[in-house]
């Protein structure tokens, strides 16, 4: 189909807009779409897609100039950069902070503990967040459960002491010692 404006070129851009129930459709060639966008007659896609989940019906419009730049930035891992590269810290695997920041890859799992603080801004830039949500390995699940149990029992023991129920408090103390031992053995 031909462009609705110049009626010369093949229409390759479909633009759909819905402002307060007022629907508009355009089928345009790349040149006309670019021109209209520059003149401000076409609202840019940015304005028409406020809600990303709802926006899929409205995203056909001309790609404008800066898009290429933004687009290329999406591919590949963002490089690690750091203003704190002054540290002389070294991981047990031999990795230094400078090597880590230059190479962008950890040397061993411990690197993330050794350089936890220095890596935080990079991790945040990549993921938008810097702490894990979601599943944990079975071994750590047991550990987390034990930690929670210990917290709970400590509260109960304090309560027993407050009520001067020393027999019960002693019982809980024995349980706590047992749990702390398993936690240490597991680690």
């Amino acid at each position, binding site marked *: *189909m031909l462009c609705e404006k110049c009626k010369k070129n093949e229409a*390759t*851009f*479909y633009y759909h807009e819905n402002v307060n129930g007022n629907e508009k459709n355009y089928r345009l060639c*790349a040149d006309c779409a670019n021109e209209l966008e520059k003149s401000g007659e076409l609202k840019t*896609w940015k304005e028409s*897609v406020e809600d*990303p*989940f709802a*926006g*899929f*019906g409205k*995203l*056909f*419009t*001309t*790609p404008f100039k800066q*898009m290429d730049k*933004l*687009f290329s930035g*999406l*591919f*590949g*891992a*963002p490089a*690690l950069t750091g203003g704190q590269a002054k540290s002389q810290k070294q991981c047990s*695997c*031999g990795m230094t902070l400078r090597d880590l920041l230059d190479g*962008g*890859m*950890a*040397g*061993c*799992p411990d690197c*993330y*503990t050794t350089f*936890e603080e220095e*890596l935080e801004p*990079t*991790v945040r830039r*990549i*993921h*938008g*967040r*810097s*702490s*894990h*949500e*979601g*599943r*944990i*390995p*079975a*071994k*750590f699940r047991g550990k987390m459960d034990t930690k929670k149990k210990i917290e709970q029992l400590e509260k109960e023991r304090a309560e027993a002491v407050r009520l001067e129920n020393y027999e019960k408090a002693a019982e809980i103390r024995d349980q706590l010692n047992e749990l702390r031992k398993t936690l240490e053995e597991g680690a």
Partner: protein
Amino acid sequence: MWYGTKGNDSDVAISTRVRIARNLAGYPFGDRLDDAKKKEIIEKIDKAFKGKEWKYTDMSSLTEAQRQSLADRHLISREFAGCPAGTQLIQNKDQDVNVMVLEEDHVRIQSIVPGFDIRSAMEKAEAAEAKLDEACDIAYSEKYGYITHCPTNLGTGIRISVMLHLPAYTRAGGIKALALQLAKLGLTIRGADGEGSDPSGNIYQISNQVTLGVTEDELVERLSNVVGNIIKEERSFHEKAGEEFRSDLRENARRNFGILMFSERISSREITDMYSTLRLAASSGLIKLPQEKLDELLVRSMPSTVEAEHKGVTTPEARDRARAELAREILGESAI
């Protein structure tokens, strides 16, 4: 095998993949691993995948064509196919779960199913991951979650990737805008063969870029919603296409089918181009070819796969002849 099997939303969706990255605690990454440590890692991971259903392959025992064919068929990564020294592949019987040992991470579990089916791809990958979790001491930190060689995979270590055929989106010039929207949601769109690859055949992969700070369930929900919307959008274009376009498309598809049925030699580039026309015509109800057969043809037409499946076929001309036969083998029973 995932290709040749009909999946959900197969008019637009080709396949769904889930990849889970895991590492063993106490072992360094990449170059810092010597041969002795690599052997230890392989032995530990073998223990997790015991039993008749798992097949072990030393990657260096395969030919270049066999390795590249595994990547062509999306069973392993291109990187893993390229560096076979001291690495191992563990596959289940159906080859829909493939475990790459000593890829970029110590372990990468990859599952693949036909069509748009995040749930079953997740189930398969997670079942294999549970075996690993049971048998091995996995590197994990309370702050960063599952530890990975590259910080881009930290957190869940999970990458879900849905492969779609988007000819109408592409024609409408919508891919770049889509890429920008996806980026806001921590998602990304790429060509079929991963980072920076050319989206030939109008095939794209949509996957999550972000792996940290999002739970597995949130990730599944987000991708299910977004990909579901993209599929609907592409489908609505097929439905809205004008009569002139449909008539041209049907004519092109019929001519292409003629080439596939009667040629003696077909190049892999020709297959890619014809694939997109035929698939769109099939999805628009203009011809009767099953999409999964077209997907099978595309995947098995890749040069390495043609070579790996046909003994003695090594020259481009021999491959082109084998490919023409393959087209008739896969589509010969179909009438359009």
